[in-house]
């Protein structure tokens, strides 16, 4: 390199300054959704009929991530992306068989086949939801039952809050959890009327539970077998069974020589 050429070259510092200040390009908004979809981590959703009308059901690779009622697909997509912070798109495939069957028959036994994507749900909330999942169709349990079962007997109110935030109502049957006084209680998917409808669809007789509760009756005892249960344990058959013995609480039942049912595990 001769002297004259070198002299005419721009200084290195100036070149470096221009290199360093060259514009950066922000990734387009379409990049993340495309990547997640391609690796199978994007959520997909279906619109399905349910006993409470049309619902949107979202699922990721990890499992069902949201069940919601929304006015339109756009509303659902927007609320999903806002709440979950990740992209969603409409599924072109059919929903999983277990979901289809459950939407037709909420009291069905296919819940065990479902996986749920509960990212962002706290440990406590997860424990509450998993416990609610154990309540069979056609039965109800009070909030205090869940609190006791998950080892936080004092956290009845927190159980209510956790159920209110259930991201996958219907599929995790939080509608089967009612107040100890027998009233139906709130429901995130459309208030107590919807909850009542769901229970009726599943074969629970809300009036009978309410009547028992109004008389202060929490448990029913089986006279022959000498155990006591929640009134809906094993379905409504115990409700129409004339041999049942009413109890106001567990102490009363135990004092009368009854033991708690192993299936519904009432308070002692």
């Amino acid at each position, binding site marked *: 390199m001769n002297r004259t050429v070198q002299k005419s070259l721009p200084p290195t510092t*100036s070149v470096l300054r221009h290199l360093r200040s060259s514009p950066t*390009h922000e990734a387009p908004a*379409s990049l993340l959704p495309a990547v997640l979809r391609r*690796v199978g981590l994007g959520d997909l959703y279906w619109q399905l009929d349910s006993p409470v009308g049309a619902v949107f059901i979202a699922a990721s690779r990890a499992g069902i991530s949201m069940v919601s009622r929304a006015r339109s697909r756009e509303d659902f997509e927007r609320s999903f992306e806002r709440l979950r912070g990740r992209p969603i798109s409409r599924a072109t495939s059919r929903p999983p068989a277990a979901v289809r069957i459950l939407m037709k028959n909420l009291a069905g036994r296919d819940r065990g086949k479902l996986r749920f994507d509960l990212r962002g749900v706290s440990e406590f909330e997860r424990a509450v939801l998993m416990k609610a999942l154990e309540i069979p169709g056609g039965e109800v349990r009070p909030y205090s039952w869940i609190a006791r079962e998950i080892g936080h007997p004092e956290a009845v109110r927190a159980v209510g809050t956790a159920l209110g935030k259930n991201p996958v109502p219907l599929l995790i049957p939080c509608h089967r959890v009612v107040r100890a006084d027998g009233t139906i209680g709130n429901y995130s998917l459309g208030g107590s009327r919807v909850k009542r409808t769901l229970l009726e669809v599943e074969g629970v007789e809300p009036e009978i539970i309410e009547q028992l509760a109004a008389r202060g009756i929490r448990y029913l005892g089986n006279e022959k077998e000498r155990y006591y249960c929640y009134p809906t344990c094993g379905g409504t058959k115990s409700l129409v069974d004339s041999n049942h013995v009413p109890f106001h609480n567990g102490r009363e039942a135990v004092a009368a020589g009854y033991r708690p049912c192993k299936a519904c595990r009432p308070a002692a």
Partner: protein
Amino acid sequence: MPQEHALEAALARDLEGCFERMVREYQDRLYSFAHRLAGNPQDAEEIAQDAFVRAYRALKTYPAERIRALSLKAWLYQITLNVARNRMRAKRHAVVSIDERDGDGHAAWEPEDSPENRPDSRFERGRRRADIATLVAGLPERYRSALILRYMEGLRLEEVASVLKQPLGTVKSNVHRAVNALREALSASRRFPAAKEVIS
């Protein structure tokens, strides 16, 4: 950098749960890098997409120990660079053809059968449009990647060496030569208005 290692540890623990965070954290960097390599947004997006998908598939097969030991940033740059190189090779996308389409819609790499596509006139057009990105894109591959990574992406020399899988000395000398080549190119394009703006 502790933050990066936190992400590596998180990926090792729960890849599916943390992959999205990784994409969010690196998407601007990798897209920008791909844009600099490819010179246009369409290719840049596809390169960045492919790079993340490849990264995910690789991470799926790695044992947790290996993920934890990764130097994520350099590793992701390396994947992006490989994707871009393969793609350009496949498209016979010559390094100099940064302006893929001319005003008349001819791809820059189309056969030189018409007067306006003869190499000399193409070169003139390129020079008239010269800005720093165009000039960088015109550098030989071995200089270009090193220069982009070092000065436009701001990687440390050791990181550049790791991305390019080259000895530190080679990287240093390629970066140095790249800067000189760029100075030459800038000097040559000085007489053209577009280039004057950048070196003023």
